[in-house]
């Protein structure tokens, strides 16, 4: 949308405003005064004609009474110098018949005679104004003497005057002509005064404008505005000078500051360079340190591995050493007994009692050897289980809660013997693609741990298994109300050979095996939840996406 930028100079605006205001004032003044004057003139004319009508009526009373038309006409002619009067009629009212008759008349210079106006006559004074004409009707009152009993005056005739308002029109034209000439004169004077004022106003303003333009173009703030004869403009010039002076000072301070800043920048740049070199050196030193730390870390990991391997080897050795040692001891004892029996047999000193005693001890030793070798075999078998095979079973769609119930029922019949209560909670319709055997082994180890380690001999434990479904996984919370996991092994509960029943049948491989089954066979995760509840709480998360299918 286009915009119109209307600019006007002070000179034009001032002259237009003054001329406009003056013109309006003159027009208004002339209009009002002319209207009032014309109104007054009209009123005066009407009043004058009324007065004349009253005088004529008064003077006409006697000629009318004595039927003296001659005197009446002579009297009427005396009004020839009254310009407003065009015609005068005198009418007589016959006192007997009541009939009105024309009595006398007067016609002004250059005026035509008019017909009788009997129909307009009235007993009351009346004024009729029509366009440029005034008609006045005035009753003629009979002169009654002091001896008359009459209380009200008697009308014996009428005066009719027709006046002209042409004199008013002439007066109006004359008045307008004079007013117009006066207005023109005033406007000329006002215009001259305005032009003079314009020069007085615009010259200082133009000088200031030129000064500002010069300063803005050449940046020469040392220029000064000249003094002006008009106070406001002089004040403006003074303020501009103050502004220029302060701007000049500001520029000088700014230049000084810029020099200081430049110097400071140079110093700062030198310091930065110095610091940069120092930082480079420090950085190189840090890189070296980091490299060394990586080396130390690798060494520590290696040491940890070696330590773990040694620990595992030591554990395996410790676990296997006992049954094999007992087996060796039993077999050594049996060999010694056999050599002693052989010697007695060769010497023919063998008695039946000695033979019987040897047989009993032999059986006992053989059972000892068998038990320990069997134990060693079990240990080796359990060691073998630690290395979980992931290829033996494929995942299948399984309803998890019924599966867990079946496993629990089987286990309860096998070794829980109804001493403890097991609750499986969850949606029976929940289906997951998983491997059944690892789940069975995991639950078996957890239940055994709860029974062996968690519950006291006389305690009736409660085991709760909660199955909850989420978008990408299924969570199994295994919770018992036993003594819980000792703090000393909480951090390494899933490490191999960690047990609190060393030498009492515990191998310390159960939870390590559970960990391997969850993480390797089922591709899930297991954590020991360290909550405030008494007992052990394990949380197993099994994936239900393609990760499981790809296993």
């Amino acid at each position: 949308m286009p915009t119109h930028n209307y600019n006007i100079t002070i000179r034009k605006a001032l002259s237009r405003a003054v001329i406009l205001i003056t013109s309006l004032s003159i027009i208004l003044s002339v209009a009002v005064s002319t209207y009032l004057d014309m109104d007054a003139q009209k009123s005066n004319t009407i009043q004058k004609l009324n007065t004349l009508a009253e005088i004529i009526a008064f003077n006409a009373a006697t000629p009318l009474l004595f039927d003296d038309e001659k005197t009446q006409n002579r009297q009427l002619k005396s009004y020839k110098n009254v310009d407003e009067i065009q015609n005068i009629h005198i009418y007589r009212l016959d006192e007997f018949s009541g009939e009105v008759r024309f009595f006398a008349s007067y016609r002004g210079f250059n005026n035509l005679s008019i017909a009788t106006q009997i129909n307009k006559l009235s007993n009351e004074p009346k004024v009729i104004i029509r366009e440029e004409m005034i008609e006045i009707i005035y009753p003629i009152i009979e002169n009654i003497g002091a001896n008359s009993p009459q209380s009200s005056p008697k009308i014996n005739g009428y005066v009719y005057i027709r006046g002209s308002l042409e004199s008013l029109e002439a007066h109006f034209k004359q008045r307008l002509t004079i007013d117009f000439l006066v207005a023109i004169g005033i406007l000329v004077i006002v215009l001259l005064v305005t032009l003079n004022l314009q020069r007085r106003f615009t010259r200082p303003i133009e000088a200031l404008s030129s000064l500002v333009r010069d300063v803005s173009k050449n940046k020469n703030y040392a220029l000064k505005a000249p003094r002006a004869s008009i106070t406001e403009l002089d004040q403006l010039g003074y303020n501009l000078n103050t502004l220029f002076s302060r701007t000049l000072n500001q520029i000088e301070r700014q230049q000084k500051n810029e020099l200081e800043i430049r110097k400071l920048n140079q110093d700062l740049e030198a310091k930065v360079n110095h610091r940069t070199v120092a930082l480079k050196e420090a950085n190189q030193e840090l890189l070296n340190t980091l490299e060394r730390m990586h080396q130390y870390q690798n060494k520590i990991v290696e040491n940890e591995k070696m330590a773990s391997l040694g620990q595992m080897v030591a554990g395996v050795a410790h676990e296997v050493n006992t049954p094999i040692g007992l087996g060796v001891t039993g077999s050594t004892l049996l060999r010694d007994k056999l050599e002693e029996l052989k010697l007695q047999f060769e010497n023919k000193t063998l008695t039946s009692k000695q033979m019987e005693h040897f047989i009993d001890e032999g059986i006992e030793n053989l059972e000892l050897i068998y038990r320990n070798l069997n134990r060693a075999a079990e240990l080796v078998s359990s060691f073998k289980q630690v290395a979980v095979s992931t290829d033996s079973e494929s995942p299948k769609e399984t309803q998890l809660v019924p599966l867990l119930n079946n496993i629990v029922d089987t286990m309860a019949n096998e070794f829980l013997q109804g001493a403890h209560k097991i609750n499986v909670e969850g949606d029976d319709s929940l289906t997951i693609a998983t491997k059944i055997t690892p789940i069975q082994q995991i639950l078996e180890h957890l239940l055994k741990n709860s029974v062996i380690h968690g519950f006291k001999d006389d305690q009736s434990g409660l085991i709760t298994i909660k199955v909850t479904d989420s978008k990408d996984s299924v969570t199994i919370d295994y919770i018992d109300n036993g003594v819980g996991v000792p703090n000393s092994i909480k951090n390494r509960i899933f490490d191999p050979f960690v047990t609190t029943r060393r030498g009492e049948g515990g191998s310390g491989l159960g939870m390590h095996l559970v960990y391997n089954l969850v993480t390797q066979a089922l591709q899930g995760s297991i954590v020991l939840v360290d909550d405030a509840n008494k007992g052990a709480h394990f949380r197993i998360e099994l994936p239900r996406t393609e990760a499981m299918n790809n296993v």
Partner: protein
Amino acid sequence: MYKLLLLCLLLIPHTLYARSITEIRAAYLFKLASYTEFEAVKGSAINFCFLDDIDSGPGKLLSDKQSVLSQRLNYQIVTVSIDDFNNNYDSCQFLYIKKQQHLQAKEITEKSKQHVFFVGENKDFLLMGGTLALIPYRSKVQIHVGRSQIKNKSFKLSSQLLGIAHFYPN
């Protein structure tokens, strides 16, 4: 023809309403009371006096019309004789003297007092001391006033009346 018809039309109303000189004189005499101010009779009746009789002339008319005209002016019709004036009769405000009686007028006017308004019927009456004469002129009556007589009277004549009157001698 047209002018003749117009003249007839102008004359007909005048003829219809034409009154006799006596009637006009009676009317003028009656109206004179309105233009004359008598100091002694303010508020009381005006006496119109007629010499010797009122069997004819304005006196008879004013007498006949008194019942009507008295509504406009409180007046009395009085018949007087020269003897009455000799005996200092002074109740007349107006004394109308007919033309036939003008010979006696001088005697009366000389004896009369200043307050009597003498009204006659010709200019000679004014020379004999009359105050005002109602003289026929064409079909009308002109008012003539004796210039010297009105100066010594105790009553006042209205300037309006004097404005239409003719002074005699000029």
